[in-house]
């Protein structure tokens, strides 16, 4: 029993990078902008978040600076694909490369090459009074750090916004049928820009969480494909905030399992255990792409004057 509780208590924080980055992906995707720079933006977020936290002191500042950096990348993507109507995949890939380079460059310039990597303090847990006293559930859900609470509150907020408000309905129409949205007076470009900026900021925060909860320092390989898994997660969850949280639990479970298996003495070479999240994702996608819906206009740019748009 304790073993299970301990496992679940590890899965919850492991979900956070997936939840934050996937909600960010959904936010821009639902407005029709298919961002593929997540992997790079998460690495940038991890680097910038660590550096800001290290030099300015405090993980909150680190998270905010990372979000600002991510938002800036999102702004470039948004302007390039709305005002200039450049190809979303191509701009996204170019930004992936640029952010990857920028992340290492910033770390190298500010920290340099050191024998002992500098460390930041890991996030503290804040048990919620009363709720954390509930057996099992309290220990798993309500004895975590603040970012965990933020990620879940955000997911709920996004779901509420998209499915329970009329602004959310208008917002979703931009990604489904921009021409129809436009004719109803929704500002398609402005919606796409803010959704992409906010979305990219969330992706960067997902990256910034990694050094703050696991290692205390930044390493280049620490995102380890999570940025790509997050895109799979968005498809898997049908671009809906509530399904994505469930999907994140699956990915986080794989993560924790792979880490555990590496430490535990088992007969299988650890490389095969490490493959597990990626192989499992591939298999799950076979089913996901059969039933999951995606925004009708995902990945396409809107041109008011073209008959083909919508």
């Amino acid at each position, binding site marked *: 029993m304790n073993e299970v509780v301990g496992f679940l208590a590890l899965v919850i924080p492991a979900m956070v990078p997936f939840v934050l980055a996937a909600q960010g992906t959904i936010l821009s995707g639902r407005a029709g902008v298919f961002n*593929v720079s997540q992997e790079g933006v998460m690495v940038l977020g991890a680097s910038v978040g660590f550096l800001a936290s290290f030099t300015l002191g405090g993980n909150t500042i680190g998270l905010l600076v990372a979000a600002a950096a991510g938002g800036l990348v999102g702004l470039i993507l948004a302007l*390039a694909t709305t005002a*200039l*109507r*450049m*190809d979303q*995949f*191509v*701009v996204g*890939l*170019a*930004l992936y*490369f*640029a952010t*990857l*380079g*920028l992340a*290492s*460059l910033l770390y*190298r*310039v500010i920290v340099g090459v050191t024998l002992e990597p500098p460390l930041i303090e890991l996030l503290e847990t804040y048990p919620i009074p009363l709720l954390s006293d509930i057996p099992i559930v309290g220990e798993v859900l309500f004895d975590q750090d603040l970012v965990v609470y933020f990620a879940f509150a955000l997911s709920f907020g996004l779901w509420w916004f998209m499915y329970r408000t009329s602004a959310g309905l208008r917002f979703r129409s931009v990604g489904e049928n921009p021409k129809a949205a436009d004719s109803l007076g929704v500002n398609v470009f402005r919606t796409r820009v803010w959704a992409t900026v906010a979305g990219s900021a969330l992706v960067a925060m997902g990256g910034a969480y990694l050094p703050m909860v696991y290692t205390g320092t930044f390493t280049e390989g620490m995102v*380890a*494909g999570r940025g*790509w*898994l997050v*895109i*799979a997660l968005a*498809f898997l969850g049908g671009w809906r905030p509530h399904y994505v949280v469930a999907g994140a639990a699956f990915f986080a479970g794989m993560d924790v399992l792979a880490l555990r298996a590496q430490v535990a003495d088992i007969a299988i*070479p650890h*490389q*095969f255990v*490490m*493959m597990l999240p*990626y*192989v499992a*994702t*591939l298999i799950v*996608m*076979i089913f996901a*792409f*059969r039933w999951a819906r995606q925004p009708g206009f995902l990945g396409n740019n809107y041109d008011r004057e073209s008959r083909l748009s919508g």
Partner: protein
Amino acid sequence: MSEVAAPPSTTTARVNRAAWYAGSVLAAFLVGGIVIVLLGLNPVVAFESVITTSFSTGFGFVETLHKWVPIVLCAYAFTIPLASGKFNIGAEGQLLVGATAGVALGITGSDLPPLLLVPAVLIAGVLGGAVWSGIAAFLMVRFGVNEILSTVLLNFVAFELIDYVASYVWPDRGAGHPATIPVGENAMLPGFGEPAVHAGVLITLLLSVAIGLAMRSTAAGFELRATGANPRAASVHGIRTSRLTAGGMLVGGAVAGLGGAIEVAGVHGNMLEGMQSNFLILGIIVGLMARGNAVAVPFVAFGIAVLEVGASAMQRSAQVPIEVVLIVEALILLFLMLSDVLRSKLGSRS
């Protein structure tokens, strides 16, 4: 996705475009120079080593040619599927599986004569790469799984696969880092001249010509491009689009796999962790800069190989971090695309 291809052109439009592209490259270097100045370092010294290292010594030039090979092959792995509108982001996984297949044959068949073993190693690489991209192609055609995701995820599976092969199957215990034992002497590609250039450069050169011709003047090449331009129209006209896109992915993976085998048999002599370097990213950058044009790929790749060889020299001579070059390359790409947009806007106004 049609925006990836450059618009059709007349001679004056070509000159005009060349001027814009040259401006884009200069602008990217300018931004890179500003970054270097902000770091408190000397951009003139830095860019001098970036541009001249490949041409100042014989070794530098040979190193550039050897770097050019995997970059060109990874660029084709990206652009061939792209012609039919599919994004293969899995060249590094395909390269590594090709290298694994090549190294397996090179180690186990080391008694065979070179005339037999060298082609066998290369063919093994081709097949290995094709199998790896074939998984993604199958998932795409049969189940509609997005090929960007499947090819990327297979990269991560390939990293673990080669780590396993290098740690358990044929480990070199003395290497201090996951690596296999060397392949037999008979598996190595012959070299020419002094300093020696391996035969993989010649193979890549011939392959580039063949791919250029095939994309331009064969029915398959035409159908591939037609599918990319308008899949629905292509299918109405009797092109079997799903078979064709799957074929494009297979050929792309095969070319990347060949790159892996050449790296084993021409450069390293074994397989080691990290041998994929950043060839995936460079291949995509080259493919996008060339606008998917198969004829332009080898030339653009040469330029990028020069930058890459120069980048490590720059780090030594001017203490500028190597990442600056990656940022400059990404900026060149962004500015090239931006120049197309600006040019068409200015053009439509006049």
